[in-house]
């Protein structure tokens, strides 16, 4: 399964994930104190350069990731115009764009494995209250491994559905998808137990 992140060796790829996430959280809080739209616009322009400093490809992919939310942001802006609050509408929309673009930037330049390592490190304090993190790591790995398998299975099932005459699959296809996955789950848990368990 392909992650969203880009492969690369830029400065952003080489800096530590923990550092990037800490910076992201800090900026996300600070951005709420900026109430000047010109300043926010400069932030947005700065982010364009930030993406471009990684590569042109990163800039393009960043734009693509923003596309679905542009519509939502437009809607929010229209509502604010209808209320006659032009300026606060612009500020909110710009702030949203900056936040989403920055968060996407961290995702684009961080490897999935590094993110997982950091995630499990963040979960470490759970050990103090008696929750083991090894099963969480196992579950994360299983989802990454099994999701493509399950997607393939769903495709096969809808193909055989269509082969039996119905052109469009409808919601009923979900039942066999779940049943095959439940059978898989039973077998996998037996297999894990047979190999010594968790």
């Amino acid at each position, binding site marked *: 399964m392909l992650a969203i992140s880009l492969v690369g060796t830029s400065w952003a790829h080489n800096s530590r994930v923990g550092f990037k996430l800490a910076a992201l959280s800090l900026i996300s809080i600070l951005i709420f104190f900026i109430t000047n739209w010109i300043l926010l616009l400069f932030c947005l322009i700065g982010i364009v350069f930030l993406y471009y400093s990684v590569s042109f490809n990163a800039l393009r992919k960043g734009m693509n990731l923003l596309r679905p939310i542009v519509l939502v942001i437009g809607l929010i802006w229209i509502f604010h115009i209808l209320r006659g609050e032009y300026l606060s509408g612009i500020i909110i929309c710009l702030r949203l764009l900056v936040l989403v673009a920055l968060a996407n930037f961290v995702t684009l330049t961080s490897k999935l494995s590094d993110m997982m390592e950091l*995630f499990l490190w963040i979960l470490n304090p759970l050990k103090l209250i008696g929750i083991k993190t090894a099963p969480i790591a196992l579950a*994360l790995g299983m*989802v990454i491994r099994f*999701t493509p398998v399950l997607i393939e299975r769903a495709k096969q099932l*809808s193909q055989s559905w269509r082969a039996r005459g119905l052109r469009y699959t409808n*919601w009923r296809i*979900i039942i066999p998808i779940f*049943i095959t996955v439940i059978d898989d789950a039973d077998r996998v848990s*037996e297999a894990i137990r047979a190999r010594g368990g968790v």
Partner: protein
Amino acid sequence: MEKNIVYIALFSGLIAVLGLLPKLTLVSGIPITAQSLGVMLCGIILGAKRGALAVLLFLSLVALGLPLLAGGRGGLGVFTTPWAGFLFGFPFAAFVTGYIMERLRSLPISIVASFSAIIGSIFILYAIAIPYYMIGAKMNFFQSILTMSPFIPGDILKCILAGFIVNGIHKSRPNAILSWARTR
């Protein structure tokens, strides 16, 4: 223990599968994504705790950078939009759905499933998503409802479908409905 972990993991994969499936065309021809149906089914089938954990696992992987949300979206950016209240509400929705499911065992399964989905995955979910949207987008209550209203008929339909689906699963794999399993 092993069974619980594997069920949680595979069901969180199923949420992804339902989001990535080609859009289901329903009776009326409205194409809707089935992702929130996946959240409902996690709660209904796995029960409160496991259902919520499956959803949390799914959201963690989205945050870590897998494009598992409907439309191939993912990454940290999806959690910073004003719509993210739905994502943060998903675990609670699954928990409440599963909790009601666990408490009502004497009625027919399809009715209980639809009922708990309506309470957990519509009322609880919107009770979290609407205030979040109001704050994030600086909208008032009425405007937020207006923006979200196109999704509500689809959500009600999904709750009803969830009842039929769980009924089908219950018929062929009664032991897999962990929320109703005898040994707890």
